């Protein structure tokens, strides 16, 4: 490293030191109040947003201070290539951010590990690099915004937005963050040229810049649509604002249980349906909720919910450790460690480690991906009580008994277990009834049911993602009797309210780019059966529209490129991009290659009359 790197370190060292101290103070204070290692996802997201914002401000400030013409000239007037200067400046700031952001996190986690009985796993130490990477992404995004062309620089900010929607977890999430960091770093190096804001000329640099700008255009387009819809709703004139259209998907999602079941039963034109309608009118409708969007994974950085529960009688808090696969006891009275006669609290009589992370829910209940465990304070054991067969994954449960049964559902079936057995004893209760789920788990919206004299009437509503064109909504009402015999009533297909073009807004502007963005969302993420979907094919009209838009983009790009001073390779590249990616590529072309300035011909000199 050159002097520039150390000079930049010295320049910001006081700020970094102050930030680190402040950061450490805040974390220390919060650690006194709560267990930062056991916060819900939203808290970690909030922390991540703050770290990103700090990096962003630093990037803006740093590059803002250098971009004044004289300073800029002075900066670049060195016997090293510009990219090297950029690298040293950026590296210095990234090091400072890592020290101010990651350092206090490491110190806090280490202190908690050393001086308290709280659970600190290896994954918690990984939060330090994760937070540093986020701050680094923010820094590079801020730097690029000031270095790149005014027309497209800000659009690259969407690259870090990918981290917010990414479903990668654990080390995968870190790799994803690192990739974004490297991509942003590459863009900064490309943009760090004497002539700031100039469109890159080298084909590779141009392509590397154009691709995120295209994605940015696409997302900006969607975001504009989102803002438009929000404004519409706020104005009170949105068609779905009050009473949704009858018989549609939106109405079904908002309906109370009785109304939904009644709609699913259909017209009372035979004896069975008349009886069912009458029973629904009189009965209490039970709703089954999901435990989580997707199952927790070993060593993921965050928790869907705090992985802890309290034994009020013994005044002990049990906290799950991803490292040991068991719950560790912390006395609520003095914060000391608490052990059972087997040591930490594991599964069953022997206290073996849980095969997957165990998420507490309800009153003394803990769920892994396949089993519900029940805590017994007397024996200090977590007894396996309900289980779904492999390879099914537990998805949700009714916390209170539904008549004679407690109900649990997996990605594939709804199970009923004897509630009285579940209330007594410590044994694994066998399932009495199994009802196959009629749709993919990722599209399930709600399950409503009533007890019947001998069995249940169950309504399944599917269609999660339908408003984005990713699911075909339907409702299926099923009768199951005490012996498990199933009678399915005719399925009710539900139209998605509103024009199809609106729901497929993500698709038709650029099908290929949309597929790339969706692929990036799930990059490095292990697939979850709970997120499984079966998206219907896009409407033919919209596919034709998308094709037409690509062709239109191609034609317009061709016309545009003829007026631009592009190399043949660049021209063919843009034509290919516009044909493949459609409108976003065309807009990007306009952003990166504005119309060449036209100089008006100078007036002819007229000799002065002597």
């Amino acid at each position: 490293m050159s002097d520039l790197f150390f000079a930049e370190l010295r320049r910001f060292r006081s700020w970094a030191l102050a930030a680190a101290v402040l950061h450490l103070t805040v974390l220390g204070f919060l650690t006194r109040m709560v267990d930062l290692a056991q916060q819900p996802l939203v808290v970690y997201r909030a922390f991540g947003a703050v770290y990103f914002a700090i990096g962003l401000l630093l990037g803006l400030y740093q590059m803002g201070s250098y971009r004044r013409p004289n300073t800029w000239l002075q900066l670049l007037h060195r016997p090293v290539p510009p990219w090297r200067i950029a690298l040293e400046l950026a590296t210095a700031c990234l090091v400072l951010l890592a020290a101010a952001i990651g350092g206090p996190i490491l110190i806090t986690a280490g202190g908690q590990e050393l001086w308290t009985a709280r659970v600190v796993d290896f994954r918690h130490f990984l939060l330090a690099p994760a937070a540093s990477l986020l701050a680094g992404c923010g820094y590079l995004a801020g730097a690029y915004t000031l270095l790149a062309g005014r027309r497209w620089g800000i659009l690259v900010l969407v690259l870090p937005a990918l981290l917010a929607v990414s479903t990668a977890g654990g080390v995968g999430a870190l790799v994803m963050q690192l990739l974004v960091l490297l991509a942003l770093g590459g863009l900064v190096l490309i943009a760090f040229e004497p002539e700031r804001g100039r469109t890159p000329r080298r084909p590779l640099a141009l392509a590397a810049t154009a691709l995120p700008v295209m994605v940015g255009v696409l997302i900006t387009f969607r975001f504009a649509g989102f803002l438009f819809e929000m404004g519409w709703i706020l104005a009170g004139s949105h068609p779905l604002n009050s009473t949704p259209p009858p018989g549609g998907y939106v109405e079904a999602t908002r309906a109370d249980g009785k109304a939904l079941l009644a709609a699913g039963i259909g017209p009372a034109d035979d004896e069975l349906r008349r009886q069912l309608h009458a029973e629904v009118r009189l009965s209490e409708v039970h709703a089954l909720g999901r435990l989580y969007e997707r199952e927790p994974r070993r060593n993921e950085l965050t928790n869907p919910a705090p992985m802890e529960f309290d034994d009020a009688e013994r005044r002990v808090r049990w906290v799950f450790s991803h490292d040991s696969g068991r719950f560790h006891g912390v006395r609520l009275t003095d914060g000391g460690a608490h052990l059972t006669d087997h040591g930490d609290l594991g599964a069953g009589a022997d206290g073996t480690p849980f095969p997957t992370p165990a998420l507490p829910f309800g009153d003394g209940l803990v769920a892994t991906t396949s089993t519900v465990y029940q805590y017994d304070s007397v024996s200090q054991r977590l007894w396996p009580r309900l289980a779904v067969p492999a390879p099914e994954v537990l998805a949700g449960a009714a916390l209170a008994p539904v008549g004679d049964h407690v109900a649990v559902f997996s990605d594939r079936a709804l199970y009923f277990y004897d509630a009285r057995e579940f209330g007594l004893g410590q044994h694994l209760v066998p399932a009495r009834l199994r009802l196959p789920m009629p749709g993919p788990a990722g599209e399930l919206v709600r399950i409503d049911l009533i007890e019947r004299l001998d069995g249940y009437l169950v309504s399944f509503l599917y269609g999660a993602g339908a408003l984005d064109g990713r699911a075909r909504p339907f409702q299926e009402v099923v009768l199951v009797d005490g012996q498990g015999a199933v009678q399915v009533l005719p399925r009710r297909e539900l139209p998605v309210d509103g024009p199809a073009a609106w729901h497929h807004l993500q698709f038709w502007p650029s099908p290929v780019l949309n597929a790339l963005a969706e692929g990036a969302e799930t990059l490095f993420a292990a697939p979850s059966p709970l997120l499984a979907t079966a998206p219907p094919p896009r409407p033919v009209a919209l596919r034709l529209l998308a094709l037409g838009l690509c062709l239109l983009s191609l034609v317009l790009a061709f016309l545009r490129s003829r007026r631009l001073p592009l190399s043949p390779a660049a021209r063919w590249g843009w034509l290919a991009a516009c044909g493949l990616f459609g409108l976003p590529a065309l807009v990007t072309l306009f952003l990166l290659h504005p119309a060449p300035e036209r100089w008006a011909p100078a007036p002819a000199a007229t000799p002065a009359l002597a």
Partner: protein
Amino acid sequence: MPTLPHRARTLRAVVLLAFGQLAAGFAPASAEEPTTWRQAVAIESRRPALSTLPRAVFLQRPNVLSPRLSPDGRRLAYLLDRDDRVGLWLVETAGGEARRLLAETDATAAAWSRDGRFLFLISERQVGALPLDGQPGGGLVTALRGAERRRLLGVDPVHPAALLVTAEDVAAGSNPLDPGTPRRFRLLRLAPDEGPVTLHESPHLILSAAFDGDGQLAFLGLVDGGEQVVAAVTPSGGVREITRCTPVAAPGCRLIGTLPDGSAAFVHGHLEENFGHLARLDRDGTVQPWHRDPHGEADLDEVTFDLTTGMPRLASYRSIVAHVHGLDSEAARHLERITRQLPNRDLRFQIGRERWLVSERNSDRPGEWLHLYDPARGRLAPVLHELQPDSLPRQALARKLPFAYEASDGHRLHGFVFVPPGHDPARAPLITQVHGGPWNHVEVGWDAVAQFLANRGFVVFQPNFRGSTGHGRDYLEAARGDFGNGRVQQDIVDGVRQLMAAGIGDPQRVAITGGSFGGYSTLVGLTFQPEVFQVGVAFVPPPDFGWAIDWNTRETDGSVVAGVPLRDSLAALGLGAPESRERLRRESPRAHAARLRRPVVLVAAGRDDRVALRSVLHYAATLDVLGKDVTLYVEPEAGHAAADDLSREMLLYLLEATFHRHLGGPEPAPPSQELAEKLARDQRLGNEGQIAVGSTQVRP
């Protein structure tokens, strides 16, 4: 006079009077003493008509709960319910101010330790100890139920201050509901601040334990294969079965005590006789009846033991009339003194060394009235009367008249009748109030619903149809499981017809009501005997008794006799064969919903562990689809029995309003705002405001 149905006229329209007992069945309110049934009815009708009392009067509950005399008889502890807060109080029986020991407790009962130095406070989930002399040992003694399914047997009669508790051990991973699961039961002695002591272990459920004078465990009451067993404990700690019996719906042979030398046990049950009685059971199996009903009509209801000696002193019978008998000459002498001062009352006793606590309950006066009896002086003095809610003079309510009649097949049956004073009984509407169970019975004592209805001018008939308890094993078993539209229901209808034949009740204005099995009988009556019953109000009714039995056997902890699962009692109750329950299903009101022609009001409970809510909802839905006149109320948080005052008032109001609407009874006072809101909230079926009367609108 309206004519009776032909069948009723052909019955032996003879209403039998339990001669010699009727006078003891109620306290004389006037100089007139009835000697025949007709005289009793005539006396009632000649009494001045009752003023209509507010519903609240019939909702009164005792403020003093669980009064408990210390073994030495010097102190009386009680729970006092004031403003819905229950506190623990203590008063010296020699006199003096009562003092409050606890401002608030969740206990529902109290019990003295043997040495009188601790009070045990018993709640649904735990038992705590309260030291009275400043000694250590206060706090939780044991949790009840829980993983070990602990059950409280009672206070240890040997240890100075301990409880006897049973615990159940099931191997981890085993289903405790599976009858085949191996399990161990432990008899535990739990003393404050001492570790548990296991007194005995058994593979059978331990129901009771008796200790000899040396404090050694002498006898055990066990349950084995659905039978009650009395076993002697040998010096080596083993057990030897002495006798076993199949309980039907009352104790077959329940161990309740022992002689001080441990040579014999005291057993309460039927044993080999028809009527439940007190017997001495020697270790060699010899049975010596100790006391049985001298009238030969009733099962033994209660045995009172001396709190200091542990010997039985009194035997009480309450099935038809209340009568108590001394089991030794001294007890008989004291009893005679007491009953001379409190004649013709339903009395219960606690016998301490220096005082007796005498508790008086009456059919025509709400509440429980306590007296302290000084056996040395033979004096009886009221105690804590000032704490009981304001009560009514005894003349303000109707009398509960024992009523015996002959069914159409010649079987002699018992029941009770309330005749509204001051009314012509022949023109008064008749309400048939059927008891629940059905393995249960109406006995002497206060009955708020019947008194409420009588106060409104209704004749109330409470039949103890065959299958009811309290009248001997033969009476109980005579039902032979025929609880559909068969023999049992015919007993009820026979009683109604005999009453009408005797000029009691207007045949054109007859209703039927009841809770649980009584509700089921209500539905049977409205479905199959519409010519008799014009309207019905059914509380927590199983619309299909066969289904309900199966459901209770499968899904609940229900039992007819403590410790004996219902499934093990079915055979003795005539319902052991699946065909018998299938027949009940075929004959059920649910299966014949289309036949219902009379209006019916159904009240169901959301947390009912005896009658599945869904069974009532399904039936109501079926009636609704068929276009029947059905009104349904569901109390979401209520259990099988109405627990709070508002729920109880709702029941009274629904009875009053329904019978006003359909039988021309008096118009009920409008419901309070709170009650009106509850009615609106709980009504799920029926015409809007159907039940509303008066000025308050009730809208579902």
